[in-house]
């Protein structure tokens, strides 16, 4: 049987819905991983050691185990202790925290690299350490790691396909379902790949815009 791309339009709505889910989950998880990354970084660097311990455990779990297992744990495991999350929420949390841990590593290094004079100047004006971190140090640290965080977010987009295993009909699972009906794996996997590529380009474009906007304020 040869290739037949003319079948695509008929199933386009299912695929587009998958695209929408992939974008929604990726953007939500990216935001969570960004904010979570900042919070984890601040805790790792500045919190009392008793507070740091549970976060070190979280960090170990999310860095040292497969993302797939983490998704199973959050979706199927938490039900047993009474936390029954919708699959897409479990997916966002899993992806978000997984990448928050990686972002946190980047942000920690960047915070330590901000010139000590910045903290001093802020403290001299009367800011507390927390205020100085929030207003002066962290914004600069985050700016410095936009490119590597951008790379993490591209990885996040690709790993978002894993949430299909807990039944979220994102792009990959949608393609699979259509293939189940049509037996046209090549056409629809290529189509899905094309959509991933386009989303990827959009993310790079956003990253580029952000980098350009902040290049002046360094």
């Amino acid at each position: 049987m040869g290739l037949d791309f003319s079948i695509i339009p008929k199933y386009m709505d299912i695929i587009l819905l998958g695209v929408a889910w992939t974008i929604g989950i990726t953007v939500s998880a990216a935001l969570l991983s960004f904010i979570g990354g900042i919070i984890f970084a601040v805790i790792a660097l500045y919190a009392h050691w008793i507070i740091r311990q549970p976060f070190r455990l979280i960090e170990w779990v999310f860095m040292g185990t497969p993302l797939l297992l983490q998704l199973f744990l959050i979706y199927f495991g938490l039900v047993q202790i009474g936390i029954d999350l919708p699959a897409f929420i479990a997916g966002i949390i899993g992806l978000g925290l997984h990448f928050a841990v990686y972002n946190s590593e980047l942000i920690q290094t960047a915070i330590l690299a901000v010139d000590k004079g910045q903290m001093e100047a802020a403290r001299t004006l009367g800011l507390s350490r927390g205020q100085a971190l929030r207003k002066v140090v962290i914004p600069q640290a985050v700016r410095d790691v936009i490119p590597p965080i951008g790379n993490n977010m591209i990885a996040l987009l690709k790993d978002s396909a894993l949430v299909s295993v807990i039944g979220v009909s994102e792009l990959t699972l949608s393609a699979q379902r259509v293939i189940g009906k049509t037996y046209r794996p090549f056409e629809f996997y290529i189509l899905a790949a094309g959509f991933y590529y386009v989303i990827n380009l959009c993310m790079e474009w956003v990253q580029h815009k952000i980098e350009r906007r902040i290049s002046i304020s360094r």
Partner: protein
Amino acid sequence: MSEQTKFVEIRHAQKSFGSLEVLKDISLNVERGQIVGIIGSSGSGKSTLLRAINDLSPLTGGEIWLEGVQVNKTLPHRQYETHINAMRQQVGMVFQHFNLFPHMTARENVTMAPKLLKGLSQADADKLAEEQLDKVGMLERIDYYPSQLSGGQKQRVAIARALAMKPKLMLFDEATSALDPELVEEVNLVMKKLAEEHMTMIIVTHEMDFAASVCDRVLFMDQGVVVEEGPPEVLFKNPTQTRTREFLRKHLEGAN
């Protein structure tokens, strides 16, 4: 209080970094409106003394008083933080390397702390920024980022940022040392203007001419002690101590 409250009083300041004693029993008073210069070779403890005044570099012995309130008093951690943040709002500091916030425009550099700490509205903050930046001749660059400014311009914005908190006392730590020679004068002019407005200032400097022209008193520091102090015309023309004469002689040679 029976005796008159001093404006700034440093009592037996002592500071050690490990086994290295950097400040050795320094006592010093500064009256309101007075301008005190501190000179001395590199490593003599000038910065450490200046930074002790707002507790950026806490003393290991002795006391700092500002208008009858002890800056470095002993308090439980939380209370001390509140106390020191309030004290620091009253003391402006200008650094050799400016330390402007690079992610903020000149306006934002000036208004960030007043907005955050004094709850200024955006309108009031804008007025304040215009006022302070105008004073240092930087009004035209109000919406520029530090990366778009020359060294002299950065330092003038840094002075405006400190002044925006309406400090009682200004500390300058070699404010012009990092500048290209042709940019020194614009910063000195701003400091002279503050002097005319009777701002109380403590100025660490390498520029003897500038110190002579603005300071009421000049201190010469060496190895953690104040070797000699006096009005600039005396200290520079007729120093009594050998170490002061040595330093001034070397400095003159270096300048030529």
